[in-house]
C-alpha cells in the first residue's frame, strides 16, 4: 500500500525558528530586532502552511479527524516522528478547536511544586479521585498510564510555546491539581495551531468527515464534506479525534426522548458524532454508556450552543431550587458546589419541562462567582414568583416552610457549616439561611450538556479495538471520542484535556510509526 511517497522532507521537520542563524527560540527573547525578524518569518511561514480553500486533499501519512486539543496534539506528535500530517476540522477557522476552546486547565500528576502547580499530587491520590467520581468504572491500566503521563504534559506543551499561568501568580489562587492555560483553551489552541503550521501540518477547515473506507479493520480513506462537495482523502493511518455527539440534537433526542429538546449544549455545535457513528459501523468496538452524558445546571437563558463557561451559575448552594410547580426537589447544600454541579444537570432534566429556579436573597450577593445574565429581582417572594410565571401560592408556601425549618447555626460558605433545615423533605444540609432579606433574586436553570460518554475502545497504544478483539492495523483514537475507556461515568475536573493530550501524543506517535514503517 503506497499511498504517499514519503520524500526526504517529510521527515525533516524544520526545527522551530532555529533556521535563522542566531535567532533560535526568540519568542522568549528580550532583544528587539530578533523578535521582529522572527515575527515576520512566522507570518510568512503561517501563510505558506495555511492551505487555500480550493487546495485538493492529497494522500498523506497520517490523517487526523478533528482539530480539538486531542487532534492537534496528535498532529504535533505525528510530525515529531516525521510523518506527513493532515488535519480535517469540521468547523470554520474562527470556531476551530471544538470543546477544547472552552477549557481552562488540565489535571496533572506531580511529585513536587512546579512553576505551574503547587505542592504535590501523586499517582495514588489522582487515581483515588478518579475511582471516586467514576464509582470504579474505569480501566485501571489505562487510567494509571494516563495519570503517570499527565506529569509530562505541561512541559511537552511548553515546547510548542504554550503558556500556563504561574502557580503563584499574586492574586490568582490557582490549583494544586490543575495547571491553568494562560488565556484559556482558545489561547492554547491558537499556539498549538501556529506550531502545527510551522511544522508543516496541513489543516483544512470546514471539512467534516462523514464516512470511512475501512477493509477488515484497515483504514483506507475518509469521505469529507468540503466546499459543498464530497471529497475523499487517503492516508496510511488515521486518528479519530472528533469528540462525542453532544451537539447532535436528533441523536440526543433518540437517547433521552423529547426532554432532550430542552437541553443546552455548552460547547461546540460541530461535535455531532458523525465520524464516530461512521466508524462504529465498521465493526469497531464501542465503549461507554450511550445513554450517559455529563450535564450541569446552567442558566436557562444561555445560547443553544457554545455558551461555554460563563453560563454556569454558582449560587445554587446559597439558596433554594424549585421546579415549575414551586417545589424543592433536592438538597441544595449537600456539598460544595464544584463537587455537586455535575449532578444538577440530571436533577433539572428530571423536572417538568426541564427547568428549575435558584432563589437567593440579598445575603448571598458577593458570595458566589458573578454570573453573566442578570438575576430576576423582586422585593417579595410572591412578586418574584409572579415574575417567573410560577404558581405564587406554592412558591410562597415552599419558601415559608423552608424558612421555618432552618435551624440556627454559624454560616460559613467556605466550609461545610452547621446551617441546615430540619423536618423538610428534602432537607438542606448546609448553608441554609432563611430567605428573608429582600430584594430576592432568581436564576432559571436548565441542563447543559458538556459531553457524551459513547466512544471507541482502544488499547494502551491508542490503537482502536475491533469487535473481533484485535487492534486495527492503522486506526487510532484520542480525546473525548475514547474518554469512555477511562471515564465509565462521572467526571474529574481537568481530566478531559489530560486524556486528550496524553492519548493525542500516543495516537499521533503510533499512527506515524505505523504509517512510516
Amino acid at each position: 500500500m503506497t499511498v504517499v511517497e514519503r520524500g526526504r522532507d517529510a521527515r525533516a521537520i524544520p526545527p522551530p525558528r532555529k533556521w535563522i542563524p542566531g535567532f533560535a527560540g526568540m519568542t522568549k527573547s528580550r532583544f528587539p530586532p530578533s523578535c521582529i525578524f522572527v515575527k515576520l518569518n512566522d507570518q510568512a511561514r503561517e501563510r505558506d502552511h495555511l492551505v487555500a480553500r480550493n487546495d485538493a486533499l492529497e494522500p498523506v501519512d497520517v490523517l487526523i479527524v478533528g482539530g480539538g486539543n486531542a487532534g492537534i496534539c496528535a498532529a504535533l506528535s505525528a510530525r515529531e516522528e516525521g510523518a506527513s500530517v493532515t488535519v480535517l476540522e469540521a468547523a470554520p477557522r474562527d470556531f476551530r478547536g471544538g470543546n477544547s476552546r472552552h477549557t481552562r486547565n488540565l489535571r496533572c500528576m506531580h511529585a513536587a511544586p512546579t512553576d505551574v502547580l503547587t505542592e504535590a499530587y501523586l499517582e495514588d491520590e489522582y487515581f483515588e479521585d478518579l475511582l471516586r467520581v467514576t464509582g470504579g468504572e474505569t480501566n485501571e491500566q489505562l487510567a494509571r498510564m494516563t495519570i503517570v503521563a499527565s506529569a509530562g504534559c505541561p512541559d511537552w506543551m511548553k515546547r510548542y510555546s504554550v503558556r500556563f499561568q504561574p502557580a503563584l501568580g499574586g492574586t490568582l489562587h490557582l490549583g494544586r491539581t490543575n495547571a491553568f492555560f494562560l488565556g484559556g483553551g482558545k489561547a492554547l489552541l491558537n499556539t498549538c495551531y501556529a506550531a502545527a503550521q510551522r511544522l508543516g501540518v496541513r489543516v483544512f477547515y470546514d471539512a467534516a468527515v462523514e464516512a470511512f473506507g475501512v477493509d477488515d479493520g484497515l483504514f483506507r480513506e475518509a469521505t469529507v464534506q468540503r466546499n459543498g462537495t464530497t471529497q475523499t482523502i487517503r492516508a496510511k493511518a488515521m486518528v479519530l479525534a472528533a469528540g462525542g455527539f453532544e451537539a447532535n440534537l436528533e441523536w440526543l433526542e433518540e437517547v433521552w426522548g423529547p426532554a432532550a429538546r430542552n437541553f443546552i449544549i455548552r460547547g461546540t455545535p460541530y461535535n455531532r458524532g458523525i465520524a464516530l457513528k461512521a466508524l462504529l459501523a465498521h465493526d469497531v468496538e464501542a465503549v461507554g454508556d450511550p445513554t450517559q452524558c455529563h450535564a450541569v445546571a446552567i442558566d436557562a437563558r444561555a445560547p443553544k450552543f457554545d455558551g461555554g463557561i460563563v453560563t454556569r451559575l454558582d449560587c445554587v448552594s446559597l439558596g433554594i431550587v424549585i421546579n415549575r410547580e414551586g417545589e424543592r426537589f433536592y438538597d441544595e447544600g449537600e456539598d460544595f458546589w464544584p463537587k455537586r454541579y455535575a449532578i444538577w444537570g440530571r436533577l433539572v432534566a428530571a423536572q417538568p419541562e426541564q427547568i428549575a429556579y435558584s432563589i437567593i436573597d440579598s445575603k448571598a450577593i458577593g458570595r458566589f462567582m458573578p454570573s453573566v445574565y442578570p438575576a430576576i429581582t423582586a422585593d417579595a417572594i410572591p412578586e418574584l414568583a409572579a415574575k417567573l410565571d410560577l404558581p405564587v401560592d406554592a412558591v410562597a408556601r415552599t419558601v415559608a416552610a423552608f424558612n421555618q425549618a432552618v435551624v440556627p447555626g454559624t454560616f460559613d460558605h467556605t466550609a461545610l457549616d452547621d446551617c441546615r433545615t430540619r423536618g423538610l423533605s428534602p432537607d438542606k444540609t448546609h448553608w441554609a439561611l432563611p430567605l428573608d432579606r429582600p430584594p430576592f433574586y432568581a436564576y432559571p436553570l436548565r441542563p447543559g450538556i458538556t459531553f457524551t460518554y459513547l466512544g471507541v475502545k482502544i488499547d494502551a497504544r491508542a490503537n482502536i479495538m475491533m469487535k473481533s478483539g484485535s487492534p486495527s492495523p492503522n486506526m487510532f483514537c484520542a480525546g473525548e471520542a475514547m474518554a469512555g475507556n477511562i471515564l465509565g461515568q462521572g467526571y474529574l475536573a481537568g481530566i478531559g484535556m489530560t486524556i486528550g493530550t496524553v492519548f493525542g501524543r500516543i495516537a499521533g506517535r503510533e499512527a506515524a510509526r505505523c504509517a512510516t514503517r
Partner: protein
Amino acid sequence: MRLDELIAEGERVMTVCNACRYCEGYCAVFPAMERRLTFAPADLNYLANLCHGCGECYYACQYAPPHEFAINVPKVLTQIRGASYRQYAWPSGFARLFDRNGLISSLVLAVCLVLALLLASLVSRPTGVLDPPVKPGDFYAVVPHGVMAWAFGLVSLLVVMALVGGFLRFWRESGEGLKTFAQPFALRAALADITKLEYLDGRGAGCTYPDAQQSQARRWFHHLTFYGFLLCFAATCVGTLYHYGFGWQAPYEWLSVPVILGTLGGTGLLIGTAGLYWLKSISDKALADREQNGMDIAFIALLFLTSLTGLLLLGFRETAAMGLFLVVHLGVVMALFLTLPYGKFVHGIYRGAALVRYALERSRPGLTMGREQ
C-alpha cells in the same frame, strides 16, 4: 458610538469577562475587574486606563466575534479610554480638543511654525534667519535666550497645570484620597511596571501586537520612545543647569553631556516613534478605535519631528541653515508642548495613576467567593 452606548457595551463585556476570567493572567485589567461585581462608568474608566490594547485577550477569547457574544475587550476599553481623556481634560472646555485631534495638532504645529518664524525675524538681527550668525552655532543670535526661556517656561507651566488638573480629576473619580496616592509601595510598584513595561512583556513572550502572534516589538519601540523622550528631557535639564548654574552658554561641545544625551534620546525617539507608527499601520484593525488614529498619529508624528529637527539642528548648527533649523525645531517643540495635555501623551498620566490605584487595591482584601475549577 454614543457615550451611554459605549458605557453599556463596556458593562456588558466586563460582565461576561467577570463570569469567565480565563484572561486573568494577562494583565492588570482582569484582577482589577475581579474585585468588582458591577461596572459603573468610573470603574470602566479605571479598567480602560489599565488596558494597553495588547490584544491578548481578544485572540484568546472563545466569545470573540463571530461568536454571538461578540466580546472584544481591547476595542471597547480603547474607546472608553478615549472618552475618559475628554472627561478628565482640564479645563473642561478644552475637552473638545481631543476630537479631530490630528487636525488640531497639525494646525497648532503650523501656527507655531509661523509664529516662531515671525518672532525670529522680528527679534533677530534684521538680516534674517538665514544669515550665518556672527559666532557659528550661536542659537541666541537667532532667538534670544530670554525669549526662549520665557516662552517655553510659560507654556510648560500651563501644560503642567493642565496635566495636574486632569490627574486630579482621574484620582478624585477613583474615590481615593490624595494621601493614599503618595503611598511609597504603590508608587514603587507602578514605577516598576512603567519602567519595565511589564504588561507589554507578556511574561517574556511579548504581546499579540500588531497581530495574533506574540512579539516584543511594541515593547521595545515604546521603550525607545519613552527613554528617548526622557533622555531629551534630561538634556534640556542639564542645559538649563549649565546655563543658570554655571553660566555656560550653548552651543555645547559635541562630546558634552547635553549633546550626548540629546543625540541618544533623539535617535531613540526617531527609531521608536517610526517603529510604533509602522506597527500601528500593520496592526489588526479589529481591535482598534479608528476615531483615535488622528490623536495617536499626531503625537507620534510630533515626537518624530521634534527629534528629527533637533538632530538636524545639531548637525547643521555650524552652517548658514542653522537659523532656519532652529526656528523650525522651536516651532515643532512648541507645538508638541501645547498639545501634550490634549493628546495621546495623557495616556502616560492616567495609565500611571491607574497602576498606582491597582497597587493600592491589591494591598487590600478582595471578594471571597467559591471558585469553580
